[in-house]
């Protein structure tokens, strides 16, 4: 029980540190791919500290509550996803709960941005929703493939089954590839950053955010990166202990980052069509295979 409570407190902190490390790393790595020197890895942290100390504007109660809901929803997701075998709340919710809890963060941002009454926000939300509709198809296919293959909806069971023998990526390569292909879309980074395109719609949902709102959004983004990648590692790469889990996450993140660094941005309809074409077909074939065998 005490261990559980401690892990509930510590796990989000670890996730936060890893998330910020990834955020900083992404800026550094992308800079190096662009042949720049790049900021220090601690730069996202500096930014957040600056933002917390900066004044901001508020459009109303919902504007505040939405951001809080968004971050809180992301924080509790960490507790449901096993990190190196530690998942204090895995008995309270399975993969289905995780899929639904992933809703809270975008819902919070959307509500908060909606009250801001800026059309750029509305466009950003509508694009985010459409993109989500796009990537949910392959995402759900690959999740269902894993759940059908292991005949369970519990993420812990999935990880356990993989650790006793081969990783799921060897049984279900196609859903894994499909999941990896849509990972940038889930994280909202290039080539799928049309949602928050700064040049077109002035960074979309974040257009009215400044100061602490932006700080919370950045923290939420750090959690989000952690969650999506940890989910991939758990589903397909067999989890692992704390160290191997982190190494696997790093590998997946870097692979995704290389794609991020070299691709231009897709238009929203191109993004939807892309998501519904190759990743969806791959994941569907994987699901059919998993269902038949």
């Amino acid at each position: 029980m005490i261990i559980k409570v401690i892990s509930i407190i510590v796990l989000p902190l670890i996730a936060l540190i890893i998330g910020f490390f990834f955020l900083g790393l992404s800026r550094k790595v992308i800079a190096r791919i662009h042949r720049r020197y790049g900021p220090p890895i601690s730069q996202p942290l500096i930014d957040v500290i600056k933002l917390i100390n900066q004044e901001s504007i508020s459009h109303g109660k919902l504007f505040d509550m939405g951001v809080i809901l968004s971050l809180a929803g992301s924080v509790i997701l960490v507790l449901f996803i096993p990190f190196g075998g530690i998942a204090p709340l895995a008995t309270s919710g399975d993969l289905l709960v995780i899929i639904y809890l992933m809703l809270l963060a975008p819902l919070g941002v959307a509500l908060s941005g909606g009250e801001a009454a800026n059309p750029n926000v509305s466009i950003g939300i509508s694009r985010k929703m459409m993109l989500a509709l796009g990537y949910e198809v392959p995402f759900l296919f690959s999740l269902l493939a894993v759940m059908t293959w292991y005949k369970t909806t519990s993420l812990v069971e999935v990880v356990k089954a993989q650790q006793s023998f081969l990783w799921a990526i060897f049984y279900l390569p196609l859903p894994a590839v499909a999941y990896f292909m849509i990972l940038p879309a889930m994280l909202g980074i290039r080539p799928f950053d049309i949602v928050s395109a700064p040049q077109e719609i002035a960074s979309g949902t974040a257009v009215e955010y400044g100061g602490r709102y932006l700080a919370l959004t950045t923290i939420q983004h750090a959690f989000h990166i952690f969650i999506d990648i940890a989910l991939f590692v758990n589903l397909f790469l067999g989890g692992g202990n704390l160290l191997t889990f982190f190494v696997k996450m790093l590998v997946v993140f870097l692979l995704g980052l290389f794609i991020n660094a070299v691709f231009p941005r897709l238009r929203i309809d191109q993004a939807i069509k892309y998501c519904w074409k190759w990743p969806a077909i791959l994941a569907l074939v994987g699901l059919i295979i998993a269902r038949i065998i």
Partner: protein
Amino acid sequence: MQLITILVVSFLGAGIVYLTGKFSGRVRDISAVLVSLAVVILVGLAYNQKIYTNFYSLPFLNLSLSLRLNYLSWFFAIIVAGIGFLSILFSLEYIKDYQGVGFYYFMMLFVNAGMLGIVLSADFLSFYIFWEMMSWGTYLLISYKGGKAVAAGLKYIIMSVAGSLAMLFAIVSLYASYGTLKFSSLASLLQIASPGYILFLLLMFVVGFGVKNAIWTLHTWLPDAHAEAVSPFSAVLTGVLVRMGMYGFLLIMYSIVGLSLLHKLGYGLLNFNYILCWIGAITIVIPTFTALLQNDSKRLLAWHGIGQGGYMVLGIGVATSLGIAGGILHTLNYAVCGALLFFVVGAIEHRTGGVRDLNELGGLIKRMPVTFIAGLAGISGLIGVPLTNSFVSKWMIYKTLIMENYPFLAFAAFIGTWGTILSVYKFLHNIFLGQLPEKYKDVKEVPLTMQIPMILLSLAIILFGILPGIPLKVISGIEKSFGVEPLSTTMFGMPKEIGELNLINILAVLLVAGIVVYLIFSLSAKSRRVNQDDNYAAGLFVPRGKYQYSARFYDQAYRIIGPYLHDVVDDFYYWLVGKSKSSFQIVRQIYTGNINTYALYILLFLTLLIFVKLGWGL
């Protein structure tokens, strides 16, 4: 006796309310509320009782009209009574400015009474009588506003009558075969019937109930009817009246035919339940994505009513303990959310002068905060955000689909949820968020009698979302009466052997995380409250109300998926109507309208008769 009291109070109450309306409007309003409240209390008192009464024996055909109460009928009766009461309460202010208010209250109470009769009746004869009462009362209420509503009502009643006829066909065939129409005796008699006959019966009943529950291919009446009816009645329609079809499905499939018999229908994947599941899946996917394209708020919700019905059909179609419980629970949950959302639309209509076009509204959160919270709770419930009610029922349906190895059905259910998220978010955003148009500057919050139903239903959403054990206890009683292994549940979720779901833990961590985040938020630098027109606009100042983006919220997605979402079924029906019209045109040619011609026809017919007679004589 108790059941007769319920029916008498509800039917007689309707008449009394109508009569008092002749004298005083105020007394009528109060008596309408009191009658519906009395029905709620009477039904509530009947909890956990098993009653059977014969209230009238027909002097012919050896039939009798009888009533019964068990868990299934109580579950539906309390939904009917509850939503009926709240909608009457909501109507008080809403309906004030309409004409024929007394008639409206009478019909509302009458339809409610009819629905109570349906769920309480113990034989198919009384079931059919109450069913027709409800159908025709509904027709009158849908057409209440006149204008376009009359066409919607006609569409409804034509499809409804077609469904009722299919049902009547099956009922008559049952009587011809067994000589009785009692549910209990039919249930035992049908156990030795041939599978073909049972399949025929089920098919007929599925058509009959499917029209009401708006399963795909029989759904086309619903969007028109929901959109054109007055909002309090739309709430009753979507939450309760349409779900009478669901009650019928449960009654015929599990109460009468039974699970063991259902498994024998068909072989392999071509069995009745699997096909019903696929119909449910299609009913989820197509209507929820059609809802994405709607710009009329009530029509959008109406399409969701169809889609959520698909979840229920899917749930009971899987025919596992978890699935049936999920389907029944979703009926309750959708009744709560759907009614709430129609109340919200009604409140908006009431205050903005009947505006339903989503593109014309916006920013009403500043003026109608209670309505906004109700709307937020409603859409959260409809989506199934964790800690709201639909989450539990949807979780149960997904879980059973995955564990029973139907991943494609599960995918349909999941993607339907995404369609729901998209369209209901558009609903909320375009009504409440964004800039407040100048013309709604002076809009006020709705009066208390309209707020109370919304608040109660919002609380119900949260309550059933955190404590799903309350309705699930009744549902396990229902399952016991079906002969299905009853679902064992805890108060806050599912026991370990069924799955990992514990909502109180989720609530606790969410609260703790929320408090921590709130502390961080409040300890950091303060923010300045700005007005709505102080918005980033690339360095420009945009006057109030001119800075809004809502028209065609999902335009790109619309361009991609829009062409595939054409309602072909509706087109097919209209094609059928056109074809039958042209064939009836030929018949019409005979009736020239001249007396001479008719006389000629008479003469010719007489001549024919004479020749026939002569032919026989020879």
